[in-house]
C-alpha cells in the first residue's frame, strides 16, 4: 500500500497522543516577549527558539516591518525573476554582502531553500561533493538533487576529509566541501581552521553554512569562519535570517562573481515567491542592530555559559563545550518524552529531538539560549532540569561536579 511506509510514524504519534504529549504539535497561543509565551494554555519560558539575539520582538525591527507592510503590501506575489524583485530585496542583498565583506549575495525566501538550492546547484553530474556527516537536512536534500557524486566525511573530522580528498586524486581540485559553523542539534563548532587547511592542501571549493553561527560567533558576528580566521578560504557562505536576525529567509554570499550567473540556475530561488517586503525590512534592521550592538553577542554567550555550566553541574550529558545550543542527551525514548512533558509542566519549553534528526541514536532535550533571557530565566531552566532528577525521570551521570 502507498501509505504503509507512514505507519511507524502514525504509531509514534498515537503513542504521544495516548500519553497526552505534543512535542511536535505544541501550539503557541501568545508571544509575551522574545523569551516568554503561552503554549498549550501554559505560561512558559521559551528555551528552544533559536532566537539567539532576541530580535524577533525588538521594537525597531517591528517598526521597520510595520512601515514596510504599509508601503509595499503584505506580499510580492511572485518570484524574484518575475514580478517579485523589490528595492527592499536588492538593498538586503547589498547589505548582507557588505556585512560579509564580499561582492555578491543572493537572498532566498527561507534558510532551507538557501542551503538546499545552493547545494543542489553548485555541483552537478561528474562533480564530487564531500559533506560533513551531521549536515542539516536541507544540505542532504540539496546534494541528493545535484546529480553529483556525494561522499560523507566523519563529523568534524578534518583528517577523514583529507583522506577522502586524497582518494579522489585530481578530482579533488573540483570538489565541493560542505561544513556548518555551529551544528544545530548539539551546538558543536566545526574545526574550520583545520578544514580550511585541508582545502588549501588538496583543493576544492569550501561552502560553510553559518545558519546557527551568524550573529553568534566572530568579531563582527559573521560566524564560525570569522572566529577561526579563515574567511579567505571560504568560497560560499550560506545562512538564515530566521535565527539571530529574528525573521525568516536565507542567503548565500561569495567573493566569486560567478554567483550572479548561478542565481539564474537555482530552482529554489526561481520557482518560489520572494520574501514579503515587511520580512525583508525587519531583517535589514536586525542586520544593522547586530553590527551596531556587539553587546548582544556578549550577553548571549554569558547566558550560554550559565546554562551549560548549570546543566553540567547537575551531571547531565551535554556537549563538549558551552554553546548557545545546549542539548541534553538521553538514551531512552520514553524517558526523554516524559522529561519533555515534565519540563513543559514546570514552565520550560524546549525541543524534543528524536533520531534521525539527532546525530546519533540518542534522544535530545535541546535548549537554545537567547541574549534576551534573563539570568533568572536561565536559573529557572536549570531548576526545571533539577526537578527531573528529583522526580527520578533522569539519572545524572557519575561525573557530576
Amino acid at each position, binding site marked *: 500500500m502507498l501509505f504503509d511506509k507512514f505507519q511507524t510514524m502514525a504509531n509514534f504519534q498515537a503513542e504521544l497522543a495516548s500519553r497526552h504529549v505534543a512535542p511536535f504539535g505544541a501550539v503557541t497561543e501568545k508571544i509575551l516577549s522574545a523569551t516568554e509565551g503561552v503554549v498549550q494554555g501554559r505560561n512558559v519560558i521559551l528555551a528552544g527558539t533559536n532566537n539567539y539575539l532576541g530580535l524577533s520582538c525588538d521594537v525597531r525591527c517591528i517598526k521597520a516591518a510595520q512601515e514596510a507592510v504599509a508601503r509595499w503590501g503584505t506580499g510580492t506575489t511572485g518570484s524574484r525573476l518575475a514580478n517579485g524583485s523589490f528595492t527592499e530585496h536588492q538593498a538586503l542583498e547589498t547589505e548582507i554582502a557588505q556585512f560579509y565583506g564580499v561582492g555578491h549575495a543572493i537572498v532566498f525566501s527561507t534558510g532551507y531553500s538557501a542551503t538546499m538550492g545552493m547545494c543542489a546547484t553548485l555541483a552537478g553530474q561528474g562533480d564530487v561533493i564531500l559533506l560533513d*556527516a551531521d549536515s542539516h537536512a536541507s544540505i542532504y536534500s540539496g*546534494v*541528493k538533487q545535484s546529480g553529483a*557524486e*556525494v*561522499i*560523507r566525511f*566523519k563529523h568534524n573530522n578534518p583528517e577523514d576529509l583529507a*583522506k*577522502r580528498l586524497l*582518494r*579522489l586524486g585530481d578530482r579533488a581540485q573540483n570538489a565541493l566541501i560542505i561544513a556548518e559553523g555551529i551544528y544545530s542539534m548539539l551546538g558543536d563548532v566545526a574545526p574550520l581552521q583545520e578544514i580550511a587547511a585541508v582545502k588549501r592542501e588538496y583543493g576544492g571549493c569550501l561552502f560553510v553554512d553559518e545558519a546557527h553561527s551568524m550573529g553568534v560567533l566572530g568579531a563582527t558576528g559573521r560566524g564560525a569562519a570569522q572566529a577561526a580566521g579563515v574567511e579567505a578560504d571560504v568560497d560560499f557562505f550560506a545562512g538564515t535570517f530566521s535565527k539571530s536576525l529574528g525573521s525568516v529567509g536565507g542567503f548565500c554570499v561569495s567573493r566569486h562573481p560567478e554567483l550572479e550567473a548561478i542565481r539564474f540556475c537555482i530552482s529554489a530561488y526561481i520557482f518560489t515567491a520572494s520574501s514579503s517586503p515587511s520580512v525583508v525590512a525587519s531583517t535589514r534592521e536586525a542586520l544593522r542592530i547586530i553590527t551596531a550592538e556587539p553587546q548582544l553577542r556578549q550577553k548571549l554567550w554569558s547566558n550560554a555559559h550559565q546554562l551549560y555550566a548549570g546543566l553540567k553541574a547537575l551531571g547531565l550529558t551535554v556537549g563538549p563545550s558551552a554553546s548557545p545550543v545546549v542539548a541534553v542527551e538521553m538514551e531512552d525514548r520514553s524517558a526523554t518524552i516524559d522529561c519533555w512533558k515534565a519540563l513543559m509542566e514546570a514552565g520550560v519549553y524546549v525541543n524534543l529531538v528524536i*533520531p*534521525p534528526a539527532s546525530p*546519533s*541514536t540518542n534522544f535530545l532535550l535541546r535548549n537554545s539560549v537567547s541574549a534576551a533571557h534573563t539570568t533568572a530565566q536561565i536559573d529557572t531552566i536549570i531548576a526545571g532540569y533539577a526537578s527531573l532528577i528529583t522526580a527520578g525521570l533522569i539519572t545524572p551521570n557519575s561525573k557530576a561536579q
Partner: protein
Amino acid sequence: MTDYQEYLNFLYSALESQNKNQLALSEDTTLVADIGLSSLEVMEFIEKIEDHFDISIPLNILPDVNTIGDLAKKVRELNL
C-alpha cells in the same frame, strides 16, 4: 583483487554487533527489512566498511542496495 565471497564474509562479521536478533545472515538478507538497521545504523555500517577497505562509498549507490549481496558487489566494484 578480493573475491566476492571475501567481501561477503567481511560484511557478515562487520554486522555482528548490529545483528541484534542473531539472524542467520546470507547474501539475500536485507539490511533494513530483515536486520532492522535504522538509517543511522546503515551509515555507521558503511563507515566501518570504508575504514576497512580504505575507500569512500558514495551515498548515490545506497538506493540500489537492499541486501548484503548488493552491498558486497558495490564494495567490490569500488575497491577494484
